[in-house]
């Protein structure tokens, strides 16, 4: 027979001002199974908690209902108190008299009546509560970071510095990402390479970090604390151990006309190449699509020249399987190409470039060594037009979202151009200037006021070439839509930030949600910004949404802190409110008939197939089993199950029906 204690909280005036708490306590006393019912001003306070503990001992309570605020707020408080009194904490439940009653209703008889109902309902539930034990899951204390840009580097360093091993996987031959391509960074104009390359080296040398460049995630299985990741290490055709990075092969490769991706196609490279001089690792890789040997079967000049014999034409891709406990996704972004804009020449005008190409032109390590020379003929451009929001905030032809970084980098570009080309004219066409951030607006004002950049509020309707010059047609909407026609030598389109190539496939591989634009989705937009909806997988940087370097670094450190917290214990404790599949004595064994509809309904891949075997090893029945490490307790499988063979612990069908029947 149940012996339930009910504790009604006034929450000061919050509940007591609207609900007659004494009446609720009195009415509850009459409910069968309730042996004790009291009301008190602040139940969460120390005297309130002591009152509960004392009552448990005095009345030998088998269950506790605290009628107070939302369980979101104080369920852990009261469950701890109950546990201290020796009762299983999961035998304590809360009836929400505040958010569900007093805050949303007027003072009066019906409000008190509803409060009584809410308490009665919860009493019926607690009568049927079973003692539960938290679930313990072992944790592999090794993290996998996917993506070696600034986000991945930062996350890897922070986790490694917390003392945990990290595997940093980067798909290209070097870590560094987009940041290594930038010239200077806003709002301080410090050189991007100067601040990034030391971090790259630090990551490579860190004893806790294993670097896997030119590698990609092949597949992933398992769950939080217990993932198995298979990594494909693509063949570089170069033995990394033997190669000294002398660079002889790269200078002698007879193939010289391959567009250099690091320089955004503004220069060329050979078929064996190091992406950039500061690459980490500084080891070349053979571009098999363009290598003469792979195309014709002849050449191998690099092999003949290599002083250490490091060239390996027979090297094959290698699959490596790793056990990891947590994953940080830091796979970055891509820029929309200039060929996406028919009105701006469809990418056919050489001097209409995107923001990243401008970065390379302005960079000291770029194809012009930082001198302002336009791509078509190498002449210094005397008039440059910058077009922000090219594709961003454009519902009809581009993406509806704001790419966030363009306002700032466009101001930076215009400024860098003016610093390099003193007599030059710089125009910026903009919709709004979004410069929220520390020292950001001051930076934009500096471009306008000190560097004399002409900002025109309006959009560019068309760019075309006439007599060897680009004609930019736009409107100045601050002057009543006055048409503007500017003859320019170069145009820089601040094209939209888009999700990285292959993001959708990767998200599906990892069972991580993504938005319509294939950016990975955070678990909660405000309160869980670095978590995904898959436990143990975290987000850093622009794979989640467009963001700048400071934000990316902050988010990467946030993700690393989550990983470090996960790794702080060797076992993971999880709330036991997970689904369980019914088990019965023979000959039924389980109500589950093995249809596995639940398996297809489960969003978390938590349902496995389990064989019930006889003593001789023969399979009697195949039934569903819920992996408690993966289950999030959402209840979808319960609703799907045709034979009612699944229940959520602490939220069984029986309990819910008992609650309803009490009304």
């Amino acid at each position, binding site marked *: 027979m149940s012996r339930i204690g009910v504790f009604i909280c006034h929450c000061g005036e919050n509940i007591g001002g609207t609900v007659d708490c004494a009446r609720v306590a009195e009415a509850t006393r009459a409910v069968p199974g309730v042996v004790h019912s009291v009301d008190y001003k602040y139940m969460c306070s120390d005297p309130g908690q002591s009152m509960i503990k004392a009552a448990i001992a005095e009345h030998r309570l088998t269950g506790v209902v605290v009628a107070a605020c939302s369980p979101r707020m104080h369920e852990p408080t009261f469950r701890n108190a109950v546990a201290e009194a020796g009762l299983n904490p999961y035998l304590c439940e809360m009836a929400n008299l505040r958010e569900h009653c007093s805050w949303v209703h007027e003072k009066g008889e019906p409000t008190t009546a509803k409060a009584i109902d809410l308490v009665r309902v919860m009493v019926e539930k607690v009568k049927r509560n079973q003692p539960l034990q938290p679930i313990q899951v072992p944790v592999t204390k090794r993290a996998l970071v996917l993506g070696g840009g600034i986000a991945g580097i930062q996350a890897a360093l922070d986790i490694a510095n917390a003392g945990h091993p990290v595997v940093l996987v980067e798909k290209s031959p070097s870590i560094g990402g987009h940041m290594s391509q930038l010239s200077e960074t806003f709002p301080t104009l410090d050189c991007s390479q100067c601040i990034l390359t030391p971090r790259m080296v630090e990551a490579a040398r860190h004893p806790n970090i294993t670097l896997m460049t030119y590698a990609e995630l092949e597949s992933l299985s398992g769950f939080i604390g217990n993932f198995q990741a298979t990594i494909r290490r693509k063949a570089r055709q170069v033995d990394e151990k033997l190669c000294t990075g002398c660079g002889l092969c790269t200078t002698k490769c007879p193939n010289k006309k391959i567009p250099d991706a690091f320089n955004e196609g503004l220069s060329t490279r050979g078929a064996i190449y190091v992406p950039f001089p500061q690459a980490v690792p500084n080891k070349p890789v053979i571009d098999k699509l363009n290598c003469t040997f792979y195309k014709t079967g002849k050449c191998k000049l690099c092999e003949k020249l290599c002083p250490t014999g490091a060239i390996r034409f027979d090297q094959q891709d290698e699959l490596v399987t790793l056990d990891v406990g947590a994953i940080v996704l830091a796979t970055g972004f891509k820029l929309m190409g200039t060929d996406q804009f*028919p009105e701006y020449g469809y990418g056919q005008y050489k001097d209409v470039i995107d923001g990243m190409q401008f970065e390379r032109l302005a960079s000291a390590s770029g194809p012009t060594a930082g001198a302002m020379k336009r791509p078509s003929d190498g002449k210094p451009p005397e008039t440059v037009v910058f077009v922000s929001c090219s594709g961003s905030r454009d519902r*009809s032809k581009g993406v509806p979202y704001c790419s966030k970084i363009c306002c700032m980098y466009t101001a930076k570009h215009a400024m860098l151009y003016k610093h390099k080309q003193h007599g030059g004219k710089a125009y910026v066409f903009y919709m709004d200037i979004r410069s929220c951030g520390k020292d950001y607006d001051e930076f934009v004002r500096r471009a306008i006021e000190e560097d004399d950049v002409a900002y025109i509020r309006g959009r560019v309707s068309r760019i075309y070439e*006439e007599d060897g010059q680009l004609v930019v047609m736009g409107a100045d909407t601050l002057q009543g839509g006055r048409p503007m026609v500017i003859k320019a030598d170069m145009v820089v389109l601040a094209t939209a930030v888009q999700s990285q190539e292959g993001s959708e496939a990767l998200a599906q591989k990892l069972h991580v949600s993504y938005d319509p634009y294939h950016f990975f989705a955070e678990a909660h937009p405000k309160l869980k910004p670095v978590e995904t909806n898959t436990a143990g997988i975290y987000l850093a940087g622009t794979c989640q949404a467009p963001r700048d370097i400071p934000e990316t670094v902050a988010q990467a450190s946030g993700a690393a802190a989550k990983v470090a917290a996960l790794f702080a214990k060797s076992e993971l404790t999880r709330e036991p409110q997970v689904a369980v599949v019914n088990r019965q004595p023979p000959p039924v064994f389980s109500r589950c008939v093995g249809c596995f509809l639940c398996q297809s309904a489960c969003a978390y891949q938590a349902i496995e197939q389990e064989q019930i075997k006889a003593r001789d090893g023969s399979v009697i029945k195949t039934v569903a089993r819920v992996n408690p490490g993966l289950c999030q307790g959402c209840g979808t499988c319960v609703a799907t199950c045709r034979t009612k063979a699944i229940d959520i612990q602490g939220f069984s069908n029986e309990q819910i029906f008992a609650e309803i029947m009490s009304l």
Partner: protein
Amino acid sequence: MRIGYFPGCSLLGSSREFDESVRALAGAIGLELVTVPDWNCCGASSAHVLDHKLSLALPARILAQAEAAGLDEVLAPCAACFNRLSSARAELDADPALRTEIAGILELPYQGRVRVVNVLEVLDRCQAELQARMVAPFQRKVACYYGCLLVRPPRVVAFDRPEDPQSMDRLLALAGAQPLDWNHKTECCGAAFSVTRTDLVARMSGRIVAGAAKAGAEAIVVACPMCHSNLDLRRSASNALTGADHQLPVLFITQALGLAMGLDPAALGLQRHLVPAGPVLSGAPALAPQPAARTRP
């Protein structure tokens, strides 16, 4: 093949040659044009600035009549008619309550079953039939001028690429012409301001003509009566304004194709233009064999 036909007012007046050439071409390729019974004005550029519901009811009445006549599609050669009919249909499709209200105003059943198509769409579909009839390749360098109403707003008309349309270029390449890559394909011609602000229209259409001439065009090809009128009828004004003497003829796409199919220039209404089409009718220097149509991503 059978298709509904909505000529609209321009094709009975200032652009008779468009009507004549559409009919001539349709006859040549065996396309039966069924004129929408008892059709009315589409509302053109006036109705939608006067009264929103009027601007919907006028096109809806045309579509309702076509529906009643059992037609699935209506060809509206005039780009403005095409645009008004498409816009009204899209708006009524999206709002069932409004559709019911407009049907009530019309006192006609209106289901929204009839699709509206422009002349380029229909010709694009009949490429095989057109190709089979080509006898006299139209070996000219042409500037295809699309204007605004055929391709905008993209969400409503859902036709071709709004900033760099290609359908007319494709058709003319089929006829043996060399469509040029030029800068003013969709620039505004000044449209209905032709009457109230002829000076503005002269300037805007003059820029288009100059652009075509600069690109080396021998003719401008259009598929819109308004564009045609601004580039042809306003030529003396634009020439006077710019001081140039551009004598570049402006042809409807149906006329250019008709010539390539060996149809009688008079049947195509080529004598009706103010800028004489003579130079492109005969005695032209032969062009290189038909160039491949431009392909872009």
